């Protein structure tokens, strides 16, 4: 990034190629297919505009996802989208839906789709923490830094997210195998 700020355009190509796919998925999982392109482009334009003011305070990846996170939150606010906080109710709904329509789920979705669906239903903070670990490859400490929270909170969010996804996946697996 410093090299790009100094005028080396090829340095940006390297950065982009390295981070474009995980970042794209990070945005996609949180904002949906209809918004991902615009938001993704907007995030990279912010990176381009910040080239002269960039200071090395943390890893570039942490800074990039912090930028992306803020843009996504801004998107939520602009569109008056309330992130789901009551994860218990949501998860129950997902489970009920899965249980209520086991045959349909079995036909329509494989396990991956089920997982993606479960991720989409996660509370925003937990989904964010999970995606930061899975897509960006950030450690718990880095997730805490990116989200501006302490280590324990980041760890807790991540644990909750995994537990809920596991709970979601168990009935689906049972449905797929045909076990009761």
């Amino acid at each position, binding site marked *: 990034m410093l090299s*790009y700020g100094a005028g080396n*355009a090829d340095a940006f190509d390297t950065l*982009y190629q390295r981070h474009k796919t995980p970042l794209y998925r990070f945005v996609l999982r949180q904002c949906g297919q209809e918004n991902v*392109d615009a938001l993704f*482009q907007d995030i990279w334009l912010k990176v381009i505009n910040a080239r002269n003011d960039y200071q090395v305070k943390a890893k570039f990846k942490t800074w990039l996802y912090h930028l992306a996170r803020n843009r996504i939150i801004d998107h939520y606010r602009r569109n008056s989208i309330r992130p789901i906080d009551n994860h218990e109710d949501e998860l129950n709904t997902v489970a009920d839906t899965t249980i209520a329509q086991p045959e349909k789920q079995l036909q329509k979705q494989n396990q*991956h789709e089920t997982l993606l669906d479960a991720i989409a239903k996660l509370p925003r903070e937990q989904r964010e923490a999970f995606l930061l670990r899975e897509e960006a490859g950030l450690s718990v400490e880095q997730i805490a830094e990116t989200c501006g929270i302490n280590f324990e909170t980041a760890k807790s969010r991540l644990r909750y997210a995994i537990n809920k996804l596991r709970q979601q996946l168990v009935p689906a697996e049972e449905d797929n195998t045909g076990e009761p």
Partner: protein
Amino acid sequence: MSTDEEKISSLYQQGNNETPPGQLDDAILNAAHDAVNSASLEHKTRDTHAKRPGHKHPKAKSPFSGSWLATVSIAAVLIITVILVPLMEQELQQAPSETTPPITGLDSKLDTSDEKIKLLREGKYEQESVSKLKSETARKEQSQKAKKRSLMKTQERQSDQAAPTATPMATSMPALMSTGKTASNFSKAESDAEEKSIVDNLVEDAAEVETSAVIMTAELWLEKIQRLIDAGNLKLAAQELDEFKKQYPNEEVEQSIIDSLNR
């Protein structure tokens, strides 16, 4: 990381194949390259403008943006104030003594004859000023004569009026005089006498002023003639003497002047 976490992670990554579209990639990369290129172009343009001969830096547009300009300006103002202004004042003070002032102004300034003589000795009082002085003196003489005449007439009138009033008072009111009411008449007589003495004094003063002015003017003239003789300008001196004799026929001329002009 537990087995559940590993399982979920591997399951998530299994079919995770979404990538940004190529058009989006191109748009972002082009934007990044354009930003760098435009910035470098601006930088180059700025550099070429700066290197161009006669190019002024934008900051230099302001007259006091450069510190040296401000310093030079302040120094110039100080030089003008400290050096040139006193010099100009000195020149102005010297100027009146070096140049011949206008005659009317000079006459009004010169209250005493001594100053005029001084100027004459310095040779700064020219012939024109002398003639002006002469005409002014003649005018003064005439005015003083007229004043004298009017004073005399007033005196005569007062004496004429005093004579008829005194006689009836003396003849018709002897009782009043004897009864002590003559004090007012005495005071009247005293005031008349005082008035007379004042008028006499005024006439004497006027006569003194007249004669002193004539003598002084004649002296000045003669001194001027003497100076012309000393300077070797005998012709002009002779003309001046002729005029002097016309103006002052009774005034005695020094023999040395006559001798030097007759040579």
